[in-house]
C-alpha cells in the first residue's frame, strides 16, 4: 500500500491550498470540497483495482495538502470517465472533472506518473491543432510506433481489416475555420495561465 497517511510520501511540504488549486483548474463547479469520504466512488470504479489510490483516498490526500503525492498518483490516469462514481456520489462531486484537473496540473509540471497517457492526449490534441478534427490514422500510427511497437505484429490483421473495410481515412479533413479555432484555443490558454498567476479564484 502506498503511504498516504500521516505525511506526504515524497517528503514535500504540505500545501493546504492545493484543493483550491484543483477546484480552480477543474473550471466549472467541481464541489470537491464537499467530499464526505464515503468511498462510494472507489466501490463504483471499474478500474479501481489498477489505481494506486482509490478516488476517496486521493481526495483525502488532496485535502491534507499532499500535493506531490496526488500529482504523482496513477489514479487519475486510470479513470475511464464512465461517470459511475459521479452519478452515485451523494455530494454530486464532478469526479471525472477533478481527475482531468489533476492530470492537467501533473502534465504541465512534468510529474505525471505515466507519460504514455499524457503523450496520447498530446498526440490527439496536436491533430486538433493541425486539422480541427481528429485524424485516426495519424493518431494511431504515431502512438503505436512510439509506445507499442511490439503490439503492432499482433494488430496487423485488425489494421488490415480496418483499411480494407474502408474504416481508415488516409486524408485528414481540415476545417475552414482552423485559424479561428487556433485563436480561440490560444486565448483560452492565456486565460488559463492568467487565472493561475492571479492566484486561486473563488
Amino acid at each position: 500500500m502506498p503511504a498516504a497517511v500521516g505525511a506526504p510520501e515524497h517528503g514535500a511540504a504540505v500545501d493546504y491550498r492545493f484543493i483550491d488549486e484543483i477546484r480552480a483548474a477543474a473550471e466549472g463547479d467541481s464541489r470537491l470540497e464537499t467530499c464526505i469520504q464515503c468511498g462510494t466512488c472507489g466501490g463504483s470504479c471499474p478500474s479501481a483495482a489498477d489505481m494506486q489510490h482509490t478516488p476517496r483516498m486521493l481526495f483525502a490526500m488532496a485535502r491534507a495538502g499532499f500535493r506531490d503525492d496526488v500529482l504523482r498518483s496513477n489514479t487519475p490516469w486510470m479513470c475511464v470517465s464512465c461517470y459511475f462514481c459521479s452519478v452515485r456520489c451523494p455530494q454530486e462531486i464532478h469526479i471525472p472533472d477533478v481527475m482531468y484537473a489533476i492530470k492537467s496540473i501533473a502534465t504541465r509540471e512534468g510529474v505525471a506518473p505515466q507519460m504514455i497517457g499524457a503523450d496520447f492526449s498530446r498526440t490527439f490534441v496536436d491533430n486538433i491543432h493541425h486539422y480541427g478534427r481528429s485524424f485516426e490514422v495519424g493518431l494511431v500510427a504515431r502512438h503505436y510506433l512510439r509506445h507499442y511497437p511490439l503490439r503492432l505484429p499482433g494488430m496487423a490483421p485488425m489494421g488490415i481489416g480496418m483499411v480494407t473495410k474502408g474504416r481508415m481515412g488516409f486524408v485528414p479533413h481540415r476545417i475552414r475555420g482552423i485559424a479561428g479555432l487556433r485563436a480561440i484555443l490560444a486565448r483560452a490558454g492565456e486565460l488559463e495561465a492568467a487565472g493561475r498567476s492571479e492566484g486561486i479564484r473563488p
Partner: protein
Amino acid sequence: MSTYLYYPGCSLSGSARAYAESLTAIVARLGIELKEIDDWNCCGATEYLTLSPLRGYALIGRNLALAERQRNGTNTLVAPCSACYANLAKTDRFVRESPVLRERLNGALAADGLQYTPGSITVRHLIEVLIEDVGLDEIQRHVTRPLHGLRVAPYLGCLVSRPDYDGRWSQHEQPRDLDRLMTALGAEVVDYPLRTACCGGHMTQIGPNTGFELIRRLVDAAYRREADLMVTVCPMCQMNIDAYQGEMNHHFHTNYHIPILFFTQLIGLAFGLEPKALGIGTEIVSAGRALGRIGIEVPPAAEEVVPVEAASHAGRRPKRSQGLPMPRLDEDDR
C-alpha cells in the same frame, strides 16, 4: 418532417462509417432531417480536458456557438457519438452552472467573434431522439423484416445515461430503453446487466491490460447469455469491442467471437434495407453468421479478417483471466 441540428463527430467519417451510413438511411425513412453544423470541429474526447480543461471547454464551446448561430427553427442538437454527446451536453450544463466558466469560455470564443448563450442549445443523443420523439410505435410501424430469433445484448455503454445532468433518462445504471427498442424490432433481448458498463475508452491506447479486462467482461457477459451479437450506440464502444476483440483474445488466451453492430444498423435491417447500405460487413468480428441464422444474407466482405483464434466458440473454453479482482455481475448465473 422534423428537423434537428446535427453534430456527427470525427469517427463517423472514419472508423464508424457504418454508423453514419446506417443512420442516414434510417432517418430518411423516419422523416427526420438532420442539418449538419457547418465547419464543426472535434470535441476533443477526454484528451483536451486532460491537458487543459479550459481549452477543452473552449473547443467544445465553438461547436455550441456555431450551433447557436446556425439554428433555424430548432434548438435541438443531435449527436450520435456518446462521447461527443456527453462533452457537448456537459459543457452547456457547466456554463449554465458556473458564471465564472461562462465568462471565461466566452472570453476565449470572442477571439474568433463567437459567443455561446448558456442553455440556448439542447443537446441530445440520437437514441434518445428516436425513442422519445419518433417513438417505438412509429419505429415498429416501419418494420418489414422483424429480427425474430436474433439474440441481442443491449449495450448502451456509459456517457448516454450518465452523467445525464439534465435528467433525460429514468435510470443511470440499468435503463431498459435500448432493450425496448430492440424488442420493437422483433429481436430477442438477453438480460444483459452490463448494459451501461464501461468499454475502457482510450485504455486500449494507454493502459491495454486494464482496457482488455474491461472488454473481456463485456464480451464474456454477452457470451454467457448466448447473445448472437451486441448492439451499441457509440463509436468508441464499437471500436473497442470489435477491433480490439482479437487482441483481447490473444491477451487472455480466449476465443470469443461476439460481433457488435450499431443500433441504427439493426433498425435498418428490420426496416428491410440492404445490409450493404447499412455498412454491414465493415465490422472486424463478422456479424455474417449471426445474421445468416435469421435469414439475412450478408455479402462476403472483400477480405474476411477473422483472427484464427477468435473464429469460433467451438474450440477452447474461455479461460478465467488473471485480471482485476473485481465483482462480476454474471458470476451467479453459472
